[in-house]
């Protein structure tokens, strides 16, 4: 009998193009996604060395980080450096002949939303991008992770990556979720339990009934934040839902090739008895809607809780919590539901998909954004935006008082005009609450789309279960 393998082992083994004596491998890359911030120097490197993109047909470029999301963006990007980065991508994509979705294309959007949407991401693949949230694509049972600029150039030139294998970790979410609890709450709760370094050196496989029950959108939300737990990548074994999602997408296989692919994809699961180096089990029933109170994604608590005291932590974390409470303008013992919010941001590669907009719109239907608040929805792609308009979600958002934006990273990071001002407090569906992430001295509370919508209505962090 052959040794039982994990899902990660299987995908890894299927992509080793060369192995050196010391275990260093050349891992073959099936899909390379490219955005404007981490790629210019890589393309420049190719030019200087007189090299080509080895597999332009496997390379997909889309601008997202620097792109303005206001309706008037066709008139161009004001910030000169941002404009130059986007123009450079434009030129590089055309010069090297890779697939490209320019700002003017309705399919443009956040790279991690566009990839799956267009059928570029498929089960069993290796997917890389010069961006840490590449982990998102693991939801399809694809080995997907972020890489640095030198590695972007390496993949462009050779379609491989120099890699050593990570360890296996299993995160099982048992049983069912309670009402009002979403994929975002799962992924934040896991980070709360393991810490931001808990996954360092590992590839995580998420499994269990609660994960099986999630839609593909929800699974992408879970895998998206694997990186915030320190892991190299997150994986979920493909199943009928995965195949259903992929079927008929523009770049998914068709006809006989489809049948052949599905046959192979069905072999992508962790064998009975396969070895994991670390196992975490969480009961789905124990997960509540959560919010972050600090400046690390591990600073997470159920919405019914209160801001913790620094003294309740240990070691270096005591000082870190003092610093983050000071930065966040919070005091120990304050109830989380007493925290007043200035701004609500719904979007990002964590929660910018159609299901996220539906969840938020459901809470907002017939309600208004609290007076004096700023609230915006930034769909993850032009196609998500179009679908939301068709389903009438856009009207619900607009009637409630939300700004209805064009697709991009927007206020997930402060690299475009959408930024928090000093001291501004935001309930955000994005993935990082680091100091300055959404703007200089801006304050971020990470939440699910439904929780963000609830906060928009009441003006405070709110337990969404009271509104359903």
């Amino acid at each position: 009998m052959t040794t039982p393998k994990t899902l990660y082992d299987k995908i890894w083994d299927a992509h080793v193009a060369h192995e050196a004596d010391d275990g260093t491998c050349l891992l073959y890359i099936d899909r390379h996604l490219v955005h404007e911030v981490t790629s210019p120097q890589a393309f420049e490197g190719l030019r200087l060395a007189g090299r080509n993109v080895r597999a332009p047909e496997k390379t997909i470029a889309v601008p997202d980080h620097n792109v303005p999301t206001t309706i008037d963006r066709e008139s161009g990007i004001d910030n000169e450096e941002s404009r130059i980065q986007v123009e450079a991508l434009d030129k590089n994509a055309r010069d090297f002949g890779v697939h490209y979705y320019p700002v003017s294309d309705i399919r443009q959007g956040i790279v991690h939303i566009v990839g799956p949407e267009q059928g570029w991401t498929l089960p069993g693949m290796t997917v890389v991008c010069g961006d840490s949230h590449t982990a998102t694509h693991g939801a399809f049972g694809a080995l997907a992770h972020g890489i640095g600029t030198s590695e972007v150039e390496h993949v462009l030139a050779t379609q491989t990556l120099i890699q050593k294998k990570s360890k296996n970790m299993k995160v099982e979410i048992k049983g069912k979720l309670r009402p009002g609890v979403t994929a975002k709450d799962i992924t934040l709760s896991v980070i709360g339990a393991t810490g931001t370094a808990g996954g360092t050196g590992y590839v995580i496989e998420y499994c269990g009934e609660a994960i099986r029950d999630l839609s593909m959108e929800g699974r992408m939300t879970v895998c998206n934040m694997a990186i915030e737990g320190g892991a190299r990548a997150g994986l979920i074994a493909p199943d009928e839902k995965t195949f259903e999602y992929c079927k008929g997408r523009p770049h998914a296989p068709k006809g006989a090739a489809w049948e052949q692919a599905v046959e192979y994809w069905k072999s992508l699961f962790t064998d009975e008895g396969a070895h994991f180096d670390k196992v975490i089990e969480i009961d789905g029933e124990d997960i509540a809607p959560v919010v972050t109170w600090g400046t690390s994604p591990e600073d997470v608590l159920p919405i019914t809780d209160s801001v913790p005291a620094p003294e309740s932590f240990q070691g270096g974390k005591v000082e870190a919590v003092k610093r983050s409470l000071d930065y966040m303008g919070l005091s120990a013992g304050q109830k989380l539901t007493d925290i007043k919010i200035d701004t609500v941001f719904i979007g990002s590669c964590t929660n910018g998909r159609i299901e996220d907009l539906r969840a938020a719109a459901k809470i907002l239907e017939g309600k208004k954004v609290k007076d004096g608040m700023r609230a915006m929805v930034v769909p993850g792609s032009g196609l998500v935006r179009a679908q939301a308009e068709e389903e009438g979600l856009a009207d619900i958002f607009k009637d409630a008082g939300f700004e209805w934006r064009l697709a991009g990273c927007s206020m997930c990071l402060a690299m475009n005009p959408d930024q928090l001002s000093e001291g501004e407090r935001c309930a955000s569906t994005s993935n990082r609450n680091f100091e300055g992430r959404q703007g200089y001295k801006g304050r971020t509370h990470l939440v699910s789309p439904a929780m963000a919508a609830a906060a928009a209505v009441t003006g405070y962090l709110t337990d969404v279960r009271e509104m359903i």
Partner: protein
Amino acid sequence: MDKFEKFSGIAAPMPLVNIDTDMIIPKQFLKTIKRSGLGVNAFAEMRYNSDGSEVGDFVLNKSAYREASILVAGDNFGCGSSREHAPWALSDFGIKVVVSTSFADIFFNNCFKNGMLPIILPEEQVEILMNDAEKGSNARMEVDLEAQTITSSDGSVFSFDVDPFKKHCLLNGLDDIGLTMEKSSSIEAFEKKLEIERPWL
């Protein structure tokens, strides 16, 4: 990547410890689309006043050191953020070698990826070279990677260690990409296999 040849050059003294990558290249220069051209921004906040004029007593602004190709630096050089812009900036300025008692890990590896040689020497030897570097532009040091030696202007020779594989890559101008390309037959074979086993890709 260019081959790393034996050379003699001017060494600039930077005795400060913990020179981090934020000092080497401040974050406002990360929005660039080039890895070249960062040399003028190297050490920007130490090197220029807020009005853009040069800080006179910063070492690389002194006429003796404008052409420096070696830095002799304090402990723990290159700590902080992992930005690859740091070695890019130094290399673009013309620095080929940094000598110190210790380096931050990521910076150390990034140097090799960009054709630069970080040399680790014991404290007393770094001190001798630091004093030698203080002498200015007439004091040229010689670096011979093949022989693994650095020679001060008065002829004292110091040997250093270097990972044999990294040495091989530097001497032959092989970057990771160049090395991987040597294995292109493996990659081609893999792609052929892929076409048969998973043709939908």
